[in-house]
C-alpha cells in the first residue's frame, strides 16, 4: 500500500512537472514578454521597459527563470493577468469555484444515474425497458458533449422555455430575491449544464455497473444470500452492490482528464462563467499568464483527484493492492 502510494505520487509529480514546464514555456516562448504585451505597459519608453525587464528578472538565464517560476508556482504565485493586472491566482480561484459547482453537480448526477441504470440492467437483464434506457445512454455517450448541450439548449431552454438560456443566476433575482428565491434560481441555472454533463458521463458508469452486477448476480455469494431467504432487494443492495464499488471508481478515475475537456465546452455553450470560459477568453486575448496558470491549476486538480481515486480503490478493494498499475 505504502509503496503503491509512492509510485502513484511519483506519477502525479511527473504530471505536474510536465504541466509546470508547459506553463513556463508558454510564458517564455509566446511572442513578446510581460513588458511588451498588456494594457498596463502602453506608453512606456524602451528604456523604461528595459529597466522593468531587469527588475522582473527577464534578463536572467532561462534556467534561473525556470527555478524562479517553479518556486513561485509552489508558493501560489503565478504572475499577473495581462488584461486586468489581477493576480492570476485570484482570477482562477473565482472561476474555479464556479466550475467546481457545475462539475460536482454533473458528476454526482452522472454517478447516481449510471449506478441506477446499470444496476437495473444488470440485475434484470430480460427487462426490455431497462435495456432501452441503457442503449439510449450508450448512444448519448457517443454524441459529443457540446452537440448534446446545444440540443438541450435549443429544445428545453429556447423551445419550451422551461430553463434559462445561460449564466449562473438571474441578475434581478440575485439582487432583490429572498434566499429561497436565489437558491431556486441557481438550481434552475445549473440544471441544464449539469444534465448535459451527467447524460454523457453516466453511460460509462452504467456500462461498467451493468457488467459488474451481471457478473455478481450469478455469483455463488449472491445465490447463497437468496438461498438463505434474503429478499431480492437485500441480495442486490447488501451482497451484489458492494463488489461493484471498486470497478466503478476505476471508471471514474479514468474519466477525469476527459471530464475537464467536456466541462470546458459545456461551460461555453451555457455561458457559465467558470474556468473553461475564462481560459478560452484568455486564449483569445493572448493573456499568457492566465492560460499558463490555468494549465497548472487544471493539471494539479486532475493529478490530485486521480491520486485520491486510486487510493480509494485500494481501500475498498483489498484484491487491487497487489496489482501493478498499468497491467491491471
Amino acid at each position: 500500500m505504502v509503496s503503491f502510494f509512492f509510485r502513484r505520487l511519483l506519477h502525479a509529480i511527473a504530471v505536474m512537472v510536465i504541466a509546470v514546464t508547459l506553463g513556463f514555456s508558454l510564458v517564455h516562448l509566446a511572442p513578446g514578454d510581460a513588458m511588451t504585451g498588456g494594457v498596463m505597459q502602453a506608453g512606456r519608453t524602451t528604456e523604461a521597459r528595459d529597466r522593468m525587464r531587469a527588475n522582473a528578472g527577464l534578463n536572467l538565464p532561462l534556467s534561473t527563470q525556470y527555478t524562479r517560476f517553479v518556486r513561485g508556482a509552489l508558493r501560489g504565485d503565478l504572475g499577473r493577468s495581462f488584461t486586468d493586472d489581477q493576480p492570476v491566482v485570484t482570477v482562477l480561484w473565482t472561476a474555479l469555484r464556479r466550475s467546481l459547482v457545475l462539475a460536482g453537480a454533473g458528476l454526482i448526477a452522472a454517478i447516481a444515474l449510471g449506478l441506477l441504470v446499470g444496476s437495473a440492467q444488470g440485475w434484470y437483464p430480460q427487462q426490455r425497458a431497462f435495456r432501452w434506457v441503457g442503449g439510449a445512454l450508450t448512444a448519448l455517450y457517443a454524441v459529443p458533449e457540446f452537440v448534446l448541450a446545444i440540443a438541450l439548449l435549443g429544445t428545453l431552454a429556447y423551445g419550451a422555455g422551461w430553463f434559462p438560456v445561460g449564466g449562473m443566476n438571474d441578475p434581478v433575482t440575485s439582487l432583490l430575491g429572498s434566499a429561497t428565491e436565489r437558491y431556486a434560481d441557481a438550481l434552475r441555472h445549473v440544471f441544464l449544464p449539469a444534465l448535459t454533463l451527467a447524460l454523457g458521463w453516466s453511460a460509462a458508469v452504467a456500462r461498467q455497473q451493468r457488467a459488474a452486477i451481471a457478473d455478481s448476480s450469478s455469483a455463488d455469494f449472491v445465490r447463497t444470500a437468496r438461498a438463505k431467504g434474503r429478499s431480492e432487494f437485500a441480495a442486490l443492495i447488501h451482497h451484489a452492490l458492494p463488489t461493484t464499488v471498486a470497478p466503478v471508481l476505476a471508471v471514474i478515475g479514468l474519466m477525469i482528464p476527459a471530464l475537464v475537456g467536456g466541462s470546458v465546452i459545456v461551460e461555453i455553450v451555457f455561458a457559465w462563467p467558470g474556468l473553461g470560459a475564462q481560459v478560452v477568453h484568455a486564449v483569445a486575448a493572448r493573456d499568457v499568464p492566465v492560460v499558463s496558470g490555468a494549465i497548472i491549476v487544471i493539471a494539479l486538480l486532475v493529478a490530485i483527484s486521480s491520486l485520491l481515486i486510486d487510493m480509494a480503490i485500494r481501500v475498498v478493494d483489498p484484491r487491487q493492492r497487489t496489482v501493478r498499475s498499468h497491467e491491471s
Partner: protein
Amino acid sequence: MKRASAVLLLIVALALLAPLVAPYDPAAQLDIVALKNSAPSFAHWLGTDPYSRDVFSRAVFGARTSLTVAALATLLATLVGCMWGACAASVSDRLGDALMSVVEVLRSVPRVLVFLSVSVLLGPLSAVTLALVLGATAWTGTSRLVYVLVRDISARPFVEAAQAVGASRWRVMQRHVMPQLLNPIVASGALLLADILAVEAGLSFIGLGVRPPGASWGSMLQDGLPFLQSAWWLAAVPSLLLVATVLSAAGIADRLESTSAGHADAKKRRTER
C-alpha cells in the same frame, strides 16, 4: 454494421465530391441583405447562414475539412501508438515498463491543456497542424492496446513453437504476431476516428480549430449558436451530420471488436479495467 457503413460511405462520398455536389461556393456571401438566415427552400436546401452563405455547400465542404483532419490525425495516432506499444512489448521488461509509464503519465495530462498551449503559441492553426496536434495527443490508448496484445500473443504456444524452430525475431513479429493485431487495431482506429472527429468539432466550436471563412462542422455550430431560436437549421445541420458520422464510426468499431475472434481474453481485460 451495414447501416453504419452506408451512412459513413455516403458522408465520405459527399466530402470527396464536394465541388461537384455543392451548388454554391461555401465561402461566398451571396446576398448579405436578402439571404441572411433564410429558411430551407428549393434554392437553398438547408437555408443560409448569417453571412448569407449556403448551408448545404458549407456542410459538404465542412465534411471535407472535418474528415480529412480526423483521418490524418487517426492515422498518425495509430502509427505512433502501434510503434510505441510494439517496442515496449518487445524490449526488456524493465525498459518496456518505463516506456509504458511514460504513456501512463501522458494519459493523465488532459488534452485540452495541450490544445490551449499550442493555440496560444501558434495562433490560428492550419488544418495540417490541427491534425498533427490531435494525432500527437491521441496515441496513448492505441499504444496500451498494442502493448497488451503483443505481450499476450507472444506468450502463446505457437510463438514459442516458431522460436523453437529458429524463426528470427522479426519473422515471428511479422508472420505470427502482426496478423493477429490487424483487427483490434482497425477497431480501435475506428473508435479513435469517432473520438477525434468530436474533439476537432469541439475545438473549432470554441474557436481554437479551423478558422473562418473555412468551414468545418464545429465552426458551423459556432456560427449557429447565437441564432438557435431564430434560425435553428444553422446548428441542426452540422449537429446531425456530426452525430451521424460519430455514431456510425463508433458502431463499426463496436462490431469489428466483437467479431475479431481469438482476442476474447484481451477484450475481457479491457472491460475489467
